[in-house]
């Protein structure tokens, strides 16, 4: 049975991080607006170095500390609560998990310790550039190595990453390649404008860029799928943290704001809305904890994918609903640039789509349930 109860250690880790992060304004105020980095590098040093967050759930033989993914989820919950801008999700979760899934011992030994220490940042470039403006990435052999050509977009932390993991088509199926971004020739990286200012995405174009094969030829898609499942589950924990925070702020504001001579929170229209939001938050918490527990256990791929789809579908919808209703409860002030309610709204909307839309997650579940899945609605 999945472990749905938070452990004392997880609660303690969350309390430590909450003190460290402060509120959303503290988190978002830190990065230098004109600096290279969108996140606080000093704080990143503390998180990755002193606290050892990046390696928390990675195996000890690769420089991690061997805790569970459920423990990592506790940390993500706090990051989500304060909208922490950080490369954690892209590098310590998506890239690290994708690499782990390759089982490529040489690469794991060579790269993971850097990711675990937070000194190397990695990104996974798995999404096509839409429209006719870029070709899917293909890899061809070049002596002992490989050369990659094609285009990828929406790459989370793609501009900053030291290492890029790129699935590419070969003559014998999909394979994953590791590209050293600093040394790579023929690589162009262009930041994309993003809806959520606390996340960075980029378009990458490869023109005969050298890459190193990671894992077996033919196994690239599987590694990415597994990495994405773990990233979806990690994102669900963030979403619960964000949703929880939005509801707390809505309730607090409704208790303070007076109209018609009484706090608006004393009106049933507001109370009942908040009660419905609490059901969403608590249900999302159950779904996210369940998925984190499944991802920490020895289950099958099918267990992992269906748990990720369940958490992804539910928590995405729940977070966006709570973030949107939070603005509604705040009224005009919630629609201003100065108030941070829109930053949660932006994060919630971006998270809803990232790693798969709710409809895409539900299409996965339809197959899992043995229902004849037509084309996923909406896409």
């Amino acid at each position, binding site marked *: 049975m*999945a472990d*749905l109860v938070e452990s004392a250690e997880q609660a303690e880790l969350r309390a430590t991080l909450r003190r460290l992060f402060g509120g959303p304004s503290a988190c978002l105020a830190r990065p230098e607006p004109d600096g290279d980095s969108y996140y606080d590098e000093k704080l990143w040093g503390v998180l990755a170095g002193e606290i050892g967050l990046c390696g928390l759930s990675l195996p000890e033989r690769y420089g991690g500390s061997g805790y569970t993914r459920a423990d990592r989820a506790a940390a993500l919950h706090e990051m989500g609560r304060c909208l922490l801008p950080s490369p954690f999700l892209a590098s310590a979760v998506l890239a690290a998990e994708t690499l782990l899934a390759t089982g490529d011992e040489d690469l794991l030994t060579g790269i993971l310790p850097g990711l675990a220490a937070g000194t190397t940042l990695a990104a996974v470039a798995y999404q096509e550039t839409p429209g006719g403006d870029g070709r899917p990435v293909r890899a061809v052999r070049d002596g002992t190595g490989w050369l990659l050509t094609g285009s990828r977009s929406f790459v989370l932390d793609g501009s900053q990453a030291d290492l890029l993991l790129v699935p590419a088509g070969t003559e014998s199926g999909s394979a994953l390649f590791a590209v050293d971004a600093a040394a790579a020739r023929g690589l162009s990286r262009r930041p994309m404008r993003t809806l959520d200012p606390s996340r960075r995405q980029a378009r990458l174009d490869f023109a005969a860029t050298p890459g190193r094969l990671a894992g077996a030829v033919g196994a690239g898609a599987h590694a990415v799928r597994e990495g994405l499942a773990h990233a979806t589950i990690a994102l669900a924990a963030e979403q619960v943290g964000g949703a929880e925070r939005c509801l707390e702020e809505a309730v607090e504001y409704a208790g303070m704001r007076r109209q018609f001579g009484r706090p608006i929170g*004393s009106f049933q229209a507001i109370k009942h809305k908040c009660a419905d939001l609490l059901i969403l938050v608590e249900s999302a918490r*159950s779904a996210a*904890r369940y998925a984190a527990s499944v991802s920490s256990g020895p289950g099958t791929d099918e267990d992992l994918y269906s748990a990720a789809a*369940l958490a992804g579908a539910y928590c995405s919808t729940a977070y966006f609903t709570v973030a949107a209703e939070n603005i509604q409860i705040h009224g005009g002030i919630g629609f201003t640039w100065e108030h941070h309610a829109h930053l949660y709204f932006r994060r919630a909307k971006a998270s809803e789509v990232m790693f798969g839309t709710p409809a895409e997650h539900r299409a996965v579940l339809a197959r899992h349930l043995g*229902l004849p899945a037509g084309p996923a*609605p909406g896409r």
Partner: protein
Amino acid sequence: MRIDSVQSFLAEFEGWLEGLGIPRRRPDQVGVGDFSVAVFDDQTPEEERAAVDRGRAWEGTKYDAGWGAVDWPSRFGGRGLPSAFAAALRTAEQDWELPRRNELFAVTQHMIAPTVRDWGTDEQVERFVRGLLRTDIMACQLFSEPEAGSDLAAVRTRAVRDGRHWVLSGQKVWSSMAACAQYGEAICRSDPDAPRHTGLTAFLVPLDLPGVTIRPIRQMTGGASFNEVFLDEVRVPDTLRLGPEGGGWQVALTTLSAERSDSGSLGAGTVDKLLALARHRGLSSSALVDEIVQLWIHDRVLALNNQRTVAETQAGQAAGAQGSLGKLAATMNMRRTSDVITALLGDELIADTGEWGTFAWTEQVLGAPGYRIAGGSDEIQRTIIAERVLGMPRG
């Protein structure tokens, strides 16, 4: 006996069921056996009584074999296990061809038994609790009145002290399955001059006393499991007063809180039946597939929520009013189920073709609104959640 885990506990329980020769249910098998997704049992009084008798016989067998009240201490015939074990056992029972437990069983075992345990005198605990758990004694609620529905503290049924007796007069309503119960837990006004929450006293009223009249109310489903109960100068001995004089509101809250905790599992298993139907028939549109998956997600998340509530209570972490969350989430899912089955069956929901497991869904569709009212309406639950969990200002 040492029990290591819920899994080994369930394996042992299911081994016991197998040993008794009870067949396993096959929810995936379409077109075979009884099919019911009724929210309220729509039965004639005779059918209702026969169903209750079958249920009581099974509960007795289970109790005597040590599988009845597993989360109660041994002096009540239980095993002192965490409530997660009892919850898992109830879920597992749904996979076996066992008598359907109608509402009266939940009221008797999960609501009134704990209320007597918490509020009863030593003599009352001795006299009633084991009997309630074993269902030798069946008990219903006598709470609502025509003028006291959501506003339960407005009850007007009078309790007047007369020596070592109380004389009860008034009208109770919506008492589920009172006709099959031997006792009713009645909330009455014992002091009309006291503030309304403190002037109430609770009693265990034997329903065969002179002056008790039970009249069925026919519901919109066609069945009549609810009743009006008229109390006309019913003389109840003081030994059947439950809790202190003037403490009726607290006694009622104990029962209601148990009711809400128990109601998170309302409608459990219904979505599996809908899925089996969908797989059997095939689905023409991907929009319909998506609707079914959304329903399944809500159903699965509710089950996880209930599981988490039980586990957190066990670990001493529970926040208050979790029961209201579970009840509201469960009734929302019942309504979603009605919507999806409407889309799935279309015309076959509104006129009976005679095909197995189709028109019978009307019982679900017609019954669902009842549970959005019973046990505290959805609106009352939302107010409870907002005020007691979120701490929002009272209106």
